């Protein structure tokens, strides 16, 4: 069972809210302070990617983010409903800058997530993509 679950309409403005909740819940469950920035950035990237793929596919369902602490780990999953085949590959970023436009590039955000987070798993299929990220907790706080 997630400790906290958040669902939001796929709008860029709500990504900041998801970041704030990520850092707040992370602190609450005992995440080491040195990891809070990493969690905030990674959750922001995963949510921005979800918003981007849903908007480009015209999919208006809520993006769902679940936060939980199990077995000494803080787990965050970000679910989109953009269907199978939404862009999930992680490009080489320096190569990507050669022809990168300012347009939203979903793979770019995921590459940042994979560079930041040691334990990350991306599953793509129907009804969409799930990005699961996990961080070790330094202390256990009752939730």
């Amino acid at each position, binding site marked *: 069972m997630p400790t906290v679950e958040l669902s939001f309409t796929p709008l860029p403005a709500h990504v900041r809210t998801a*970041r704030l909740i990520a850092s707040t819940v992370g602190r609450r469950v005992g995440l080491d302070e040195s990891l809070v920035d990493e969690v*905030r950035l990674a959750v*922001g990237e995963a949510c921005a990617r979800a918003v981007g793929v849903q908007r480009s596919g015209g999919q208006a369902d809520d993006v769902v983010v679940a936060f939980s602490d199990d077995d000494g780990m803080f787990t965050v999953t970000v679910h989109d409903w953009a269907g199978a085949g939404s862009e999930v590959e992680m490009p080489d*970023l320096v190569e990507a*800058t050669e022809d*990168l436009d*300012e347009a939203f590039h979903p793979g*770019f955000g995921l590459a*940042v997530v994979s560079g930041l987070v040691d334990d990350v798993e991306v599953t793509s299929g129907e009804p969409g993509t799930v990005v699961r990220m996990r961080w070790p907790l330094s202390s256990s706080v009752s939730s």
Partner: protein
Amino acid sequence: MDLSLETRTEGDRTVVVVGGEIDVYTAPKLREQLIDLVSSGAYHLVVDMESVDFLDSTGLGVLVGGLKRVRAHEGSLRLVCTQERILKIFRITGLTKVFPIHATVDEAVSATD
């Protein structure tokens, strides 16, 4: 915190002071500012990021877009940043090889290579 932008001219350089959060929501505002500057003939830009609290890949994309625009006019785009949490994002993405990053605005303004 939202995004704040201020620009000033120092010699032939235009300094853009950015504050707050550069993310998927606010990055379009920075992109418009950079496009406006290049359109008005400012091809040597210094982006001061010392007051930036948060930067994501959308913001990186906008900076890369700005770099490409000024390079099309044989210009330059230099960054000023000493904050470790922001520098980390440039390192992870390999963009430290793409952008000259300086410790102070004075250093960036006087840099020539």
